């Protein structure tokens, strides 16, 4: 239920506080053992294209979920990645997966959606949910 509600949130401009938070956001989560992949969202007339860079990942280990206007990408790394002697909090960190929740600019449907994975780059094409209604000029 909670996920669904979040999924209906509309994308808006970030408040200064959120911008500040964004600037300090790390691209890893030591507790979950996950790394955030680089990702881009492109909006076209009828679809949204999401790309994500997923190096060290096998195609069969990628899970993609769509909830209205949220795309969730999870991909197991083909080997654990450790960062030794790094930072002050975590002396040694082990990461085993990529995980990212991407807010899309509009709601999308999985009907007709397509995903490809080539050279470690994931490309997901998602048709927009059609909410267009024509208004007749009298």
């Amino acid at each position, binding site marked *: 239920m909670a996920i669904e509600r979040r999924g209906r949130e509309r994308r808006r401009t970030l408040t200064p506080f959120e911008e500040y938070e964004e600037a300090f956001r790390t*691209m890893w989560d030591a507790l979950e053992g996950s790394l955030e992949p*680089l990702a881009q969202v492109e909006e076209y007339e009828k679809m949204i294209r999401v790309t994500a860079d997923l190096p060290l990942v096998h195609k069969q280990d990628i899970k993609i979920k769509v909830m209205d206007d949220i795309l969730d990408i999870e991909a197991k790394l083909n080997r654990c990645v450790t960062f030794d002697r790094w930072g002050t909090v975590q002396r040694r960190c082990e990461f085993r997966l990529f995980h990212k929740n991407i807010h899309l600019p509009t709601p999308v449907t999985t009907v007709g959606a397509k995903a490809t994975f*080539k050279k470690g780059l994931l490309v997901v094409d998602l048709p927009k949910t059609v909410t267009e209604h024509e208004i007749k000029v009298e």
Partner: protein
Amino acid sequence: MIKVKYCIVGAPDVGLVGAISLSYLIQSLKMEQMGYLESDMFDPVIVVHQGVPETPFRIYGKDDLVAFISEIPLEPHSLFPVSRAIVDWAKSKNVELLVSISGVPIQNRLDVEVPQVFSVGTSPAIRDSLKKEDIEPFEEGFMAGLHGLVVRECLKKGVASAVLLAQSHLQYPDPGAAASAINALNRLLGLKVDVKKLLEEEEEIRLKMRELMQQTGRVMAETPKTREQGIPLMYA
């Protein structure tokens, strides 16, 4: 006083091509740090490598080759003093050629097996040598960023300069593009840097450079990078 023949410059920008190329060159050629560049316009950071604090913009040298590399993305306003400092130094050393390495984003990067390298030379002689090495000229367009400003300073101060632009991803680290750029540099300067290891470690590099790419993307958004896709005025 050391004799410097060639200077190479690279900083994080498009696909991190310049940064990846320079860092790989420095490692492969076992170049040694000989100095650094400092400016009040840089971000207030210092890097720590294996317990040793280092400035993020460093200068390396070996024999008659000198490399300038930035480990942090450079804010647009800091590019002016940086390019001036590099070119002034190169001029004072009577450098034969100053080469900047960067990337040029292409949309169908996934379909390109070996990225092509385009070049810009500041004099007919350099353009000739680039042509002789089969490095295609970048015929028409804009160059925004450190390499663009370095060329501008070189033209102003009469320093011979070339830019190597490898086709690359815009916002994903692109070691494959860096390998192409290094191969072109090998031919141009007569170096023998083997890119095998770079290509073998490609995926690992992509994973480890995510954060730098993310920060670089934020800085690039403030540079007139979009102008690079435009067509310049024809009869000015």
